[in-house]
Every structure is written in structure tokens, then in C-alpha cells.
């Protein structure tokens, strides 16, 4: 375990942030390539249409020297892929071409690429490509996609149903029948996306001389890219290199395989030239993966003293036109039904899930996948149950959490849980909020006609998902991460990691881990990553895995180097290595702490003075280790969020007053990084709660594909977000960390919805659709008045 005086656990500022603040970030679009061509896509204006023909002639006339490459031409060098899963034989998803060949199945699907000497010229050419379309009926209304008369996204499948399943334990129907209070709701969670500041970007350079493909891009999982490019473009894997430079946010959006991105490499292979494509903001709205888009009907029964008797959940998730390669598109819905009320003791649960295709952009994984839905549904039902039973909602939670004696356990939704800390988190949160006085203030203000609301929501966050999920699916996605740690001649240390840095600061935390293992300062450790040719193989950045998996790999690699350093030092000092330790940048006597030889001396001798070493000593000053979680399928973090807000019941406006989070992500390596992950996550959760929605008309046309109409939270409208910690290290790893990247997003929508409904309670009004808008609040109030 880390030295308590060491770097792990300390709020060290990260050096990478300083570099970015100095304006020295190098994002994909900043890189320069000689002989570069620029690509723009011709995208389908229809949600569903047959492509009768593509005539490049007007484009070539308008932009001399331009090239137009159709989906059919791209298909000659790039095989289609299929988003099916080996372990889910009933889940269907048809083959997908990088660029549409015969039929476009969403508004925004690429159908041809125009390439020219500048992006402006490529756009000029793309605008002039003449496509003959035959528009087809589209399936674009979530709750009607599975109707008998719905248009079929993929007629060859005979239905829009992608997958359906059911799970549960006990007899929830009987349990609900026997409950004293039964509450129910129909909830809706809008389709939205992740909106990273930096757009998806690809620069592909196929070198016909050597047959190599080098891709620079803004991607969370370059190894998945490498594998896909190799297999689908037919380039041997050792000739494919994917480099991820600085990344301006991903949030899951950038972990997927996109047809347009793969097509850039295909075009480079066809032309033998470097080709660059940057998604622009309007394209991002109709080409980045979308998420959420779920309708949930749920019922909860409690007995007279508020204890849960049973829960029933029925969810319908709407996808886009395809599942994503290697990433199960059903996760949003599966997480909903697996995670709902997982922190609470309950014996009777049933859940049904249906997942359907629509003529919309492909669906994928966005920060917190399905868990905000599970949390919002269960927590709202619990609040209503508390109201029905006349019990304070916080007290009702306390009565229902699993007790410490219950662990380890398997929840009715199927989650294996070794240990959680919701009671400790709740106690801390209630103290931070000043819950009792907030309730008193709320009651006083209500007499003055002011409608304040308080929401307290318990969340679970599934992090660091391991091989049990990805292995059986057949996906070529590694759940392992790797690291090489090397002693430089000066005694400084370099760490090369497969963990992708995309703004979250994980690399800084890895330096802290190395520092403690080798007894050096964190700023004596350099961390690099993001290059499939030069770093150990790994997963990248997703599922809040950076420290739990990548950090453990670093811990092990640094441990291996530590052993090698001590062995070399023993040989130099003619001492028993068991009597030696590392601290303060030196090899020291384990018993006394007395420095024996500086690491810089070890570095100098180990790299330059091999002549002074006894025969048979081979200094090994770089060590590579990998780690894959082998003892648990995931690391389950937990916490509680609180929201205080005010609703203007005449205008429907919501003013967020304060937000609190207490979370338990196991051992904290750097509290600054954890707290900013929590805050950023809360802000995206607020986006889902109050603002973000991809609006579509019935023909599948997106109505708000710009920042003028797709609203995201703005700094000026946000409350202070107070963060507290409970630390319950997991026992399966040396470090004991769990993920923290999604916790904020999991719980914030629930806390806010609960608070809004708490504010509206005296009016008898309820909102159950996210995002909550001024109009939806006014409508709910009007509906309550109308009885």
C-alpha cells in the first residue's frame, strides 16, 4: 500500500493542465502533414432513402482537381462490419458499410466523400455532388417504432426489434399486490449526445511505398481503431499505427468505430495521400453517437413503514439505425434494468427491456450509460413512496439500504456487489446540505408562495468493466491495460501507458502512483501514451477504468522496476537487496532509512557504466506489466447527490441553488482530479435533466442541430457543486481505486428531477420526462389544476 507520506492521495496540480493553459496543446487539427488533402462528406438529407445514383460531374466541374469517392468505391477497399455480439445470439444488427452504398438509413449518413486541396474546396465539391434519391418511409418516433405499421429501418430484418430480454427474482406481482403503498410512473429520457468540445478528427496517411497506414485522431480507444482498420482495410496489423494526440473531451462519444472515420483511411488508401477530416459541429449532431432515448414504466411497492416490497420496470430503448461495432447498443437499456434500485434491499423484482432501431444516427455509449435512467426512475419512485407512507425521503432510504451484513450479495437485477457505503455517504451528504434546516426553510418559503425543492438521490456507478462483459461478445476490445516504467540515466522516471488522456488528468495520477512505488517525487515522472505502435497494448479510456485498470498496471510495472533497481543496487553496493528500500530519490537502508546510493547513480551506472558491473549482471531498468481485472466483473462505486432548487410556478423557470455530491470511488489517488470529474459529470447530468435533447420530426429530420437550439448547460446558470468523499478501497487490487468519471452524470438528473417534483408537490403536479423545460413544468401544473 502506498506510503501515507507519498504522492498518492494528495491534491497535486497536474502538469498537463499547465501546458494546455499555456496554449501548447496539440490536438489532431493542429498537426501538419505535407501533401495533405481535405475531405468533406456528402450526407443524406433524408432519414431513409434509396440511392439511385451519384453523379460527381458537377462537383468536378465546380472544383477542378477535386475527387469524389462514393460509398461503393470505398466498399472496394473496406469490408462492412456488423454490430452483433457473439454472446447475444438473439440481438440483431445488419452489416454496415463505412459509407452508405445502396440505401441511407439516417439523415446525416455519409454517402460519398469529396476530396480537395482545402476543406473549403472539399465542401464546395461536396455541395455539388448530384445524388438521385428515392425517399422511403422512416421510423423516427420512439414510442411507435415497434408498431405493426411502423416503417422498417432494415426491411430484411422484418422488424425494428433489435433485442428483448427480461430478468428478475422473486414474485414482484404478488409483492406489489401485497404492498401497502404502490407508486408508479411513466418516464421518458430524451435522446441526446455527449458534445465534446473538440470534434472527432482523423488524419489518415496510407503510404503506398511501405504499405503502412498511420492515423492520427481524436479517439478514446486507438487499439480498437487499429484492429478495425487492419481487418477491414486488409492491412497487416504491424503496419497500422494509430496515434491519439491531445484530445478535447470524449465522454464515450469517441470510443466508437465510425463509418466516416474509417472511410478517411479508405480514401487515403485509394489515393495514396494523407487525408484529413474534421467533423464540423452541425455534422456532429447527426453523426456522433446518440444515447439515452428511453421510455420506462415502473411500479414500486412499499409496506407501511416504507420498506420496499417489490419493483417492476418495463423499458423501451430506441437506437439509431445500427449498433456500434464491438460496443453492445443494448447497454443503455441493460444498465437501466440491471442497476435500478441496486443499493436497496429487495427480494422481488421483474424487468423487461425492448430495444428498437430507428432511422437516426447510430446509438452508442455516453458517459454513465443507462445508469442515470436507472437512478432517476428508482429514486423518483422512492420519493413518491416516501410521500405516500408519510416518511421523510432521506429516512426512507436509510431504512432500505442493504446492510453491511448483507454483503457480498447479488441484487435482484443481477449485480454482484462486494461492498457499498450508501449509509455513510448519505450521512455525510445530509450533514453537508444542512438537510433539516433546508427543509425548514422550504416550509417557511412555501407560506410566502415560493416553491423550493430538495432532491436526494442514491446512485451506483459501474466502473472498470472487465473481461466478463467484453470477452464473450467476441469484440476485439481489450479490457486490459499496460504500462512500461523506465529509469532514465538521470534518475528520472518515464512511464509509457495505454491509458488515453483526454482531459481527465489520468496521466497525472499515474505519475503519482509511479512516484510512490519508486520513492521519487511525482514531477520526476514523465507519462506518455496514445500511440499504438510504441505503448503497451490496452483498452484506452472508457468505463472509468483509467486508474483501476491502467493504474494497477502502472503499479505493477513500477513494482517490477523497483525490484530490478534494488537488485542492481545490491550488486553495486554488495548488499542484500532485502535490506534495501527506495525513498527520497535514493536507494536506502531499509532498517535505518539512511541513503546508500542515489537513483541518479543507479541510472548512470545501469545505462553507461556496464563495464563496472560484475559479470552476469544485466541491468533491466524498464519493466512492462499489464493488468486485467480478474476477481470481479466491475468495480462498483456508489454515492449520494443532493439538489436544492426553486421553481417559478408562473413561468416554469428552474433556478438551481446548490448541488452536493458524496461519492465513494475507493482509494483516491488525487482528490483534485476526482472532484473535477464529479463536477464535470454533474454538469453533464444537469444537461440531461434540463436542456439536452436531439429533437426530431416524424420524418426523422433533426430540428435542432446547432448550439443555438441544442442547449447545453452554461457556467452562469450552474449552482455551486460541493463534493465530499467516503473511501472504501476495493480489496481486489493493490491500489483499491474505483472509477469516478461517471458518478456525477449518473446521479444528477435524478437529484434534480426529485427536487423539481418536491417543489411542485403542493400543486399536485409531476414531471417525468427529461429534459424538464419551463413548458413541461407549466403543462404539469395545468394538468394538475385540471384534475
Amino acid at each position, binding site marked *: 500500500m502506498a506510503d501515507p507520506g507519498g504522492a498518492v492521495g494528495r491534491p497535486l496540480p497536474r502538469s498537463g493542465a499547465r501546458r494546455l493553459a499555456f496554449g501548447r496543446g496539440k490536438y489532431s487539427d493542429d498537426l501538419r502533414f505535407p501533401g495533405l488533402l481535405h475531405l468533406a462528406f456528402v450526407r443524406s438529407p433524408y432519414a431513409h432513402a434509396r440511392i439511385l445514383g451519384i453523379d460527381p460531374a458537377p462537383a468536378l466541374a465546380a472544383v477542378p482537381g477535386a475527387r469524389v469517392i462514393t460509398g461503393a468505391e470505398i466498399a472496394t477497399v473496406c469490408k462492412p462490419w456488423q454490430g452483433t455480439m457473439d454472446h447475444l445470439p438473439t440481438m440483431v444488427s445488419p452489416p454496415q458499410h463505412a459509407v452508405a452504398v445502396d440505401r441511407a438509413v439516417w439523415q446525416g449518413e455519409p454517402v460519398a466523400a469529396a476530396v480537395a486541396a482545402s476543406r473549403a474546396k472539399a465542401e*464546395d465539391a461536396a455541395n455539388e455532388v448530384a445524388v438521385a434519391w428515392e425517399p422511403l418511409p422512416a421510423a423516427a418516433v420512439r414510442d411507435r417504432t415497434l408498431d405493426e405499421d411502423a416503417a422498417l429501418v432494415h426491411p430484411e430484418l422484418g422488424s425494428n426489434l433489435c433485442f428483448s430480454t427480461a430478468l428478475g427474482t422473486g414474485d414482484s406481482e404478488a409483492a406489489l399486490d401485497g404492498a401497502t403503498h404502490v407508486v408508479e410512473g411513466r418516464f421518458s429520457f430524451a435522446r441526446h449526445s455527449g458534445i465534446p468540445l473538440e470534434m472527432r478528427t482523423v488524419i489518415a496517411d496510407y503510404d503506398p511505398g511501405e504499405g503502412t497506414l498511420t492515423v492520427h485522431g481524436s479517439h478514446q480507444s486507438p487499439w480498437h481503431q487499429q484492429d478495425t482498420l487492419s481487418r477491414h482495410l486488409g492491412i497487416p496489423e504491424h503496419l497500422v499505427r494509430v496515434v491519439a494526440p491531445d484530445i478535447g473531451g470524449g465522454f464515450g462519444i469517441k470510443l466508437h468505430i465510425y463509418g466516416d472515420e474509417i472511410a478517411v483511411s479508405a480514401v487515403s488508401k485509394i489515393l495514396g495521400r494523407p487525408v484529413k477530416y474534421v467533423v464540423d459541429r*452541425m455534422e456532429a449532431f447527426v453523426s456522433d453517437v446518440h444515447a439515452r432515448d428511453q421510455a420506462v414504466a415502473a411500479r414500486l411497492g412499499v409496506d407501511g413503514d416504507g420498506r420496499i416490497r417489490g419493483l417492476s420496470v418495463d423499458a423501451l430503448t430506441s437506437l439509431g439505425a445500427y449498433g456500434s461495432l464491438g460496443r453492445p447498443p443494448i447497454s443503455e437499456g441493460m444498465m437501466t434494468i440491471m442497476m435500478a434500485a441496486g443499493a436497496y434491499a429487495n427480494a422481488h423484482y421483474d424487468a423487461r427491456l425492448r430495444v428498437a432501431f430507428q432511422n437516426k444516427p447510430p446509438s452508442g455509449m455516453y458517459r454513465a450509460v443507462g445508469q442515470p435512467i436507472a437512478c432517476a426512475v428508482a429514486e423518483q419512485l422512492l420519493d413518491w413512496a416516501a410521500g405516500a407512507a408519510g416518511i421523510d425521503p432521506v429516512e426512507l432510504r436509510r431504512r432500505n439500504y442493504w446492510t453491511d451484513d448483507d454483503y457480498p450479495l447479488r441484487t435482484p437485477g443481477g449485480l454482484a456487489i462486494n461492498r457499498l457505503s450508501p449509509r455513510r455517504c448519505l450521512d455525510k451528504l445530509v450533514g453537508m446540505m444542512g438537510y433539516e434546516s433546508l427543509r425548514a426553510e422550504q416550509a417557511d418559503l412555501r407560506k410566502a408562495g415560493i416553491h423550493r425543492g430538495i432532491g436526494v438521490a442514491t446512485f451506483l456507478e459501474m466502473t472498470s468493466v472487465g473481461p466478463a462483459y467484453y470477452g464473450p461478445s467476441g469484440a476485439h476490445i481489450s479490457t486490459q491495460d499496460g504500462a512500461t516504467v523506465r529509469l532514465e540515466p538521470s534518475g528520472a522516471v518515464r512511464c509509457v501507458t495505454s491509458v488515453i488522456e483526454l482531459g481527465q488528468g489520468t496521466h497525472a495520477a499515474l505519475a503519482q502512483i509511479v512516484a510512490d512505488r519508486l520513492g521519487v517525487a511525482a514531477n520526476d515522472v514523465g507519462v506518455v501514451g496514445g500511440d499504438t505502435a510504441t505503448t503497451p497494448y490496452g483498452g484506452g479510456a472508457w468505463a472509468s477504468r483509467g486508474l483501476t485498470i491502467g493504474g494497477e498496471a502502472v503499479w505493477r510495472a513500477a513494482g517490477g522496476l523497483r525490484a530490478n533497481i534494488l537488485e542492481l543496487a545490491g550488486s553495486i553496493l554488495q548488499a542484500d537487496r532485502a535490506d534495501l528500500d527506495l525513498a527520497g530519490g535514493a536507494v536506502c537502508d531499509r532498517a535505518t532509512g539512511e541513503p546508500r546510493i542515489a537513483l541518479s547513480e543507479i541510472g548512470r551506472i545501469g545505462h553507461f557504466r556496464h563495464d563496472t558491473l560484475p559479470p552476469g549482471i544485466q541491468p533491466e531498468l524498464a519493466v512492462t506489466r499489464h493488468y486485467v481485472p480478474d476477481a470481479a466483473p466491475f468495480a462498483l462505486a456508489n454515492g449520494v447527490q443532493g439538489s436544492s432548487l426553486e421553481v417559478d410556478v408562473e*413561468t416554469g*423557470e428552474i433556478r438551481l441553488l446548490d448541488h452536493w455530491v458524496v461519492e465513494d470511488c475507493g482509494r483516491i489517488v488525487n482528490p483534485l482530479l476526482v472532484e473535477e470529474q464529479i463536477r464535470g459529470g454533474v454538469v453533464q447530468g444537469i444537461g440531461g435533466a434540463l436542456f439536452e435533447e436531439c429533437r426530431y420530426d416524424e420524418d426523422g429530420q433533426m*430540428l*435542432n442541430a*446547432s448550439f443555438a437550439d441544442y442547449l447545453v448547460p*452554461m457556467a452562469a*446558470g450552474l449552482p455551486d457543486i460541493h463534493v465530499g468523499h467516503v473511501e472504501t478501497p476495493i480489496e481486489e487490487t493493490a491500489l483499491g481505486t474505483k472509477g469516478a468519471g461517471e458518478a456525477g452524470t449518473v446521479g444528477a438528473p435524478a437529484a434534480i428531477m426529485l427536487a423539481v417534483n418536491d417543489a411542485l408537490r403542493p400543486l399536485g403536479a409531476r414531471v417525468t420526462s427529461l429534459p424538464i423545460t419551463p413548458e413541461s413544468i407549466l403543462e404539469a401544473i395545468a394538468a394538475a389544476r385540471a384534475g
Partner: protein
Amino acid sequence: MKAPRFAYIRPESLDEVLELLAEHGEEARILAGGQSLMPTLNMRLSRPRLLIDINRIEELKGISFEDGTVRIGALARHAEVMDSPVVAEHLPMIAEAMPHVAHVAIRNRGTFGGSIALADPAAELPACAVALGAEFVLASARGRRSVAARSFFNGLYETERGDDELLIETRIPAIEPGYRSSFMELARRHGDFALAGVCCHAKVDGNVLSDVRLAFFGSEDRPRFADAASAAAEGKAWSDDVKDAVKEALGGDLDPIGNFHASAATRLHLARVLTGRAIDRMVAAG
């Protein structure tokens, strides 16, 4: 998101601008702050042949007060209007509206004249101009003319300005003794286009209102002067009954256009709520 090709010219004199407008008419666009024009070009929603950059034309700049009238040059930046002591003293409604005009970065570049000439129906300044009885001065190679704000706005992005004309300044009567203004806006987020917005101006004597002028934005395809609602408050002592009458009358003035941010009915409801609150505040300000 790259603009299509266009020609660009940056004249040094007003005469030169007017000659270019006379020659190119509707194929030219005026570039002032560029805060609406540049996104429109980059989204390829507009394909003018020529951009005429007027940022060098000195006589279009500045804010001044003379003979009871405030003159706001077409090139006055929003930030300049927001910080202007002249505006704060003589046009309190405009001063109150400015923080609602977009965001700091946009206010640093965007111009008063640009906002008027663009005629976005959700924008604040056209409605203020209507409520305050502003006059817009248009210049062309043919000469100059002045158009009252109430007859300037013809519809969505449509105005009385001819293709060869340049809006050179706005002239707004300074607030007179005994008068008060009030401005209120509702938007999804601060700085967004309005779901509802009201500009109130009236003589307030105790709680008796006269010369009542109510104008609305974010409702229809242009800023709307509310004749019936204004008349319902005219000469009345402000009370809950009068408030109800004004709100009721507003239903005859406004025929809002709904979209996915808010339906027509919601927009009318919000305009009514805001009107009551804005007049409450205006009366209470004494």
C-alpha cells in the same frame, strides 16, 4: 462549415459603401460585427457575392445626446452601448436590456445597427426601439430618409431597408421626466433568444399610468407593439384588476409563433406573466 467563396471589400468612406450598395444591391451583404452573418455564411445558409466591411467608417461609430435625442451609430458595439453613461441616463430601458443581448464575447463584436438591420424577431433591441419610438436613418446613393421603428420591421429578417440602403444610425427620444421603463425577458438560458420578452414605457404618476407603450419580442415574426394591452392600462391606476385586463387584452395583440422551445400558448402565457411583473416593477420603482 466553411463559407462559400465571396468577394470582400473594406471601403474607407460612407460614399464608397453607398456606391457599392447601389451597384451590387441584394448580392452584397454588410459586414459590421459579423456575429450573425459569419455563422450564416459558414453554414452556407447565405451565399452573397460581396461582403462590404463597414468597420472603417468613422461616421457610423459613437453614441451621443443632443436636443433630447440619443443617437446610436450603426457601428456602436453592444458592449459600448452597455457601458455608455448616455444610454444609462437617457435610455434606461436599453441599459436594462443590454445584459440580455447574447454573451460577453458576442457583445464585444456585435453592433446595435446590425441587430436592428437583421431584424431577428427574438432580439431585444428592435422591440426596445419600437417601444421607445425610435427612428432609423437609412442612407443610399439616392439620399437619406428616416423610418419610424414601428413601421420598419416587416417580418422575419425583413425590413423597410432597400437593398441599396445602409442603416447608419438610430435616433431615440430620451426618457422624459415622469416616465419610467421596464424590460423583462425569459429565455431557456441567459443570453439565448427569448421565449418571451416585454418592453414597457409609460408616464407613471403615483400608480397611474399614461402614454403606455408595451412592445414584445420572441413572440411573432417581428417585434410587436401591443395596442390593446397598452390601451387597457392607459390612464388607469395600476391594480390587480387592471393587470388582469392588460393580460386579457394582450391576447388580442399577440399571435405568437410556437416552436419546440415553447408553444404559441406557452409564449402568450409567458408574455402575460412578464407584462404583469414588468409593470409591477415599473410602478414600484417610484
